Structure formats: C-alpha cells, structure tokens
C-alpha cells in the first residue's frame, strides 16, 4: 500500500472539497463573469478589484478575516447560528466558503475573458434570429465561451487542491473534516516523516504538472483565456 489510510482520507477530502468548490464557483462565477464582461457600470472596476484580491493577498489575511466572519459573533456566524447550523469555522462547509473566495479569480477571469473575446457579434446575430436574452445566453454565449469554462474549471479545481494558508486559518487540522493534502504534508514534515511527505508532495507536483499540461497543451493552440489576468 502506497498511502496509509489517513493519507487516503486527506486525498479524498481534498478532491471532495475541490469538486464542491469548483461546481459552486461555476454557478456563482458565470453570472459574475458575464456581468463583468458586459457592464458599463462604474461598479465594474471596484467589483473586478475585489474578485482579484485573492491573487495578491497572503492567504493568511483572507483566512483571518474569514475566521472572524465565520465565528459565532461574526456576520456569517450569526446568520448560520440563527439558521441552527452553528459556526462554520473548523468545518468542511467553512472550508468550501474559504475555497470559493480564494479560487474565485481563477474561475471568473478565464470565463470573463472568454465572454469578452466573443464580442457582441454572435449575440446580435442571435437576436436578429429571434432569440431572446436567456436563449442567447444559453445557446450562444455559453457554448462560445467553452474554452473559458474549461480552463476556469481546471484552474479553480487545481488551485483549491493547492491551498494551504486559508485552510490552516479557518479549518485547522481535523482528520476527515478539514485535514486536506497540503495540511497532511505539513503534518508529516513537522513529524519528520520525510519519506511519506515525499510521496505525497511528489504526487502533488505530478498532478499539478498534468493539469497545467492539459491547460497549456490542449487549449494552448487557441488563446488560453485563463492565462491573461486582469481585464
């Protein structure tokens, strides 16, 4: 057996976290990306800056504020408390919220760039073909922005797999609940289990390489929308 049970548990937890976060990010990120790509509102600049904040902030800063927000006295904590869910700090759900914020730009920006690159042309053509706004969005905008959705999903997933600082701040280190792969590696190194750490860390390197190979290799012939940050 290559990995002991606790490591497998960490891997499974990480995949579950990244999948959940990526799916929710697609739901939240798509309308956000659409709005950012098409609005002329003055709010566009501030909103784009907020979305991009996780790119530049140390994860500990994000984690610190999230911890305060999720705590029973914080705004999210009060809400979840009122709903009878208790505080989400140090829970899997809390990690999902943290991951969504942390990986938001990696999903929103490729989709936003794809919507932007598509231009008004195809949407105007669809309108002259008699398609209303919803039909235009689902039958024209989304199919044409597919490369953006693919790279956004891959990058969002991979980035969530690789997060460490936010997890440590708001998730702690609870096996099966919040101990993801990156935290597991940290644990192993702290315990001087270098051989085990090698296996897991090496696997992460291979995984990340393969993901980027897919993004740059298969999508690279077209422009990769995700690789151009900012608007």
């Amino acid at each position, binding site marked *: 057996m290559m990995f002991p049970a606790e490591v497998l548990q960490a891997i499974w937890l990480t995949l579950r976290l990244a999948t959940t976060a990526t799916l929710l990010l697609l739901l939240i990120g798509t309308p956000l990306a659409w709005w950012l790509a098409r609005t002329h509102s003055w709010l566009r600049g501030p909103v784009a800056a907020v979305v991009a904040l996780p790119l530049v902030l140390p994860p500990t800063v994000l984690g610190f504020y999230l911890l305060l927000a999720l705590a029973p006295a914080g705004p999210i904590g009060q809400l979840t408390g009122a709903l009878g869910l208790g505080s989400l700090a140090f829970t899997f759900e809390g990690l999902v919220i943290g991951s969504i914020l942390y990986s938001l730009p990696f999903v929103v920006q490729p989709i936003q760039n794809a919507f932007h690159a598509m231009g008004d*042309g*195809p949407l*105007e*053509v*669809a*309108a*002259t*073909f*008699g*398609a*209303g*706004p919803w*039909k*235009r969005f689902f*039958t*024209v905008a989304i*199919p*044409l922005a597919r490369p953006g959705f693919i790279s956004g999903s891959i990058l969002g997933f991979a980035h969530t797999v690789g997060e460490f600082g936010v997890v440590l701040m708001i998730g702690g280190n609870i096996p099966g609940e919040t101990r993801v792969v990156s935290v597991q590696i940290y644990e192993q190194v702290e315990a001087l289990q270098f051989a085990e750490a090698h296996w897991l860390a090496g696997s992460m390197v291979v995984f990340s390489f393969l993901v980027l190979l897919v993004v740059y290799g298969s999508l690279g012939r077209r422009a990769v929308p995700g690789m151009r940050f900012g608007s």
Partner: protein
Amino acid sequence: MHVRIAYAMAQPAGGEFRLEVDVEIPARGITCVFGASGSGKSTLLRCLAGLDRPQSAWIKVEGEIWQDETRLLPTHSRRIGYVFQDASLLPHLSARRNLHYGRDPGSDADTADAVKLLGIDHLLDKNPRQLSGGERQRVALARALLSRPRLLLLDEPLSALDVARKQELLPYLQRLPEQLDCPIVYVTHSPDEVARLAAHVLVLDEGRCVARGSVTELMASRQLPVNAAGESGVVLETAIAGLDAEWNLAKAEFADGSMLIPDPGVTAGGLIRLRILARDISLSHAVEAHSSILNRLPATVLRIEESPDAAMCMVHLQVGENSRLLSRVSRKSARRLKLAPGSSIFAEIKSVAILQ
C-alpha cells in the same frame, strides 16, 4: 414603412455623431442606403433592427410600431432578416443549424426551396469557419429568406468579398425582390451596387438624408455623390423587344427609344437594366453614316455643368418625354458644338453595360 430617427451618439474619439432621418421606405423592392463611411448608413440599419437604440424614433413596419415615444420592441421580437458584412452566422453551429436556429423556420419545402435557390445544399453540414466568405453570405441570405421577415436589412454584404465572389453573389441579390414581399434596405458605398440593385435610393451624408428617389432619377440628376467623374452615368430600365441572331444583338426598348445591345441571353419581353456612363456618350450634330457607332439617339440639351478650371464638362440630355442621359465631353467640344440648353443634338452611345 415609415422611419423617423433622431439619434445622438457619443463618439469613441470624443464629440458626438447625430443621425437624423425622416423617410418613407417603399414596401417592396430594394432601397439602397448610399453614402461614404461615417455617413450613418450602418447606424440607420442598426436602429431599424433595434441593435442601436436612438433616443427618439418612430419606426412603423407594415402597420406595426417597432419604436415610438413609449415603446421599443427588442430586436428578437422584430421579424427581421439581417445580413452583416461578414459574420452573419452563429460560428459554433453548422450551416443547417443556423438555418433552423430560433423562430419557426417555415416548412421543409420552404427550406428546400431556399437551399436550392442559393445553391447551398453541399454546404449544410459545414461550420461557418469552413465556408468561404461568399458561401457564408449565401447561407445568411437563405436564412434571411426562410425567416419570412417583415423587413430585410443588408449591411454591405459584398464588402468583405473579392471581385469574383461579388459577381457570384450579385444575381442572388438581384432576385431578392421576387422572393420577398417586404421592404429590403441595402447599405452600400458602391455606386456599382446601387446601379445594379436599387429600385430606390437614400443618400446619407453626415447623418442626414440629402437625396432620395428612384435610382434612374438620382443617377440622371447626378445626386449620387460619386468619387470619380468617370463613374457618372445613367441607368435605364429596358425590355428586350427582339433578337438579331446573325449579329448576336438584341433590341432593348426603353420608354423613349430603343438601342441595340449585345445579346444578354434573355428571351424577348425580358427586363434588362442598362447602365450608360457619361464618358461613353459623345455628341454630334449630324448623323455620321461612316461610323462604328450603333446607337444614336436624338436628344435635347437640358443644362451644362462646367467649371472654368476643368477640361471636361457634364451635359444633361433629355431623350423623348422622360428619359435622361449624361454625356461627359470636353469644354472645347461643347463650345465648338455651340451647346446650350434647348439645343438639339445626337447622343452617340459607345458602350452599354448590361447590369441584369
């Protein structure tokens, strides 16, 4: 249909562009909107489609109000066909799915007719990316025909094509009025396309309509701003009255006379549009017996356009009751012939272009 638009739009370079038109567009036939780049032609078309939203407009098509002070019908609720300069198709769908996208595309028989008419049968399973510019425009035209529009809008549909492809597409465009019983608005900056396609013309300049009327009127009165003087000329609608098989000639009759033209391959009774450029008409007093000129029409000088600093002048001629010709001759010749309004003269036609 009636169109009144007042539209002020901010320019990316600063300042603003104003489009102000108030025109009646004939319910049938091709109306060409002619003008230089930046005259507002495409903007007018986009306003008719609802893609641009003018601050104030009154657009009424076949009794249905598309825009007035209180209402604005969105683009997808207007029954229009729109052929853009290049990208008139959805790039991610095959030609066939483009034909069927959106509202009820009519019966299979209609589809078969349109596909046959435009010769696009072999293109249906290809993506727009795999089609040439001319093929894409033919698919777009088929789509426009199929949608049974109440208004067909064409925005320089030939401008992205090379000369050979233009010639290939023109016959399809010329047949549009037979296929569609609705106003057809065709934007172009090409005098040649106006001469070939238009029944009516609107001339736009800096957002205003500076001339409008039938193509024969406007061409004859030189109200179409044409860049080179060599392009001036008239358009005549003629009917083929007889064929002379020995010399491959046909007799083309117009309201006030007739001409011999190279056999256009049309049976007797067929309608032919001719264009005669001003530089191809010379003037003489006597009927020259020894000349290669076939067509010589008696005419009366209406007026002479000349300026002292140019060698050439433009002579406006009347033939019979209603037909007009233009002749471009040197000022020296005009003086030698003692031309003046009212003079009788023979117009010798050196060449005739058969447009359709």
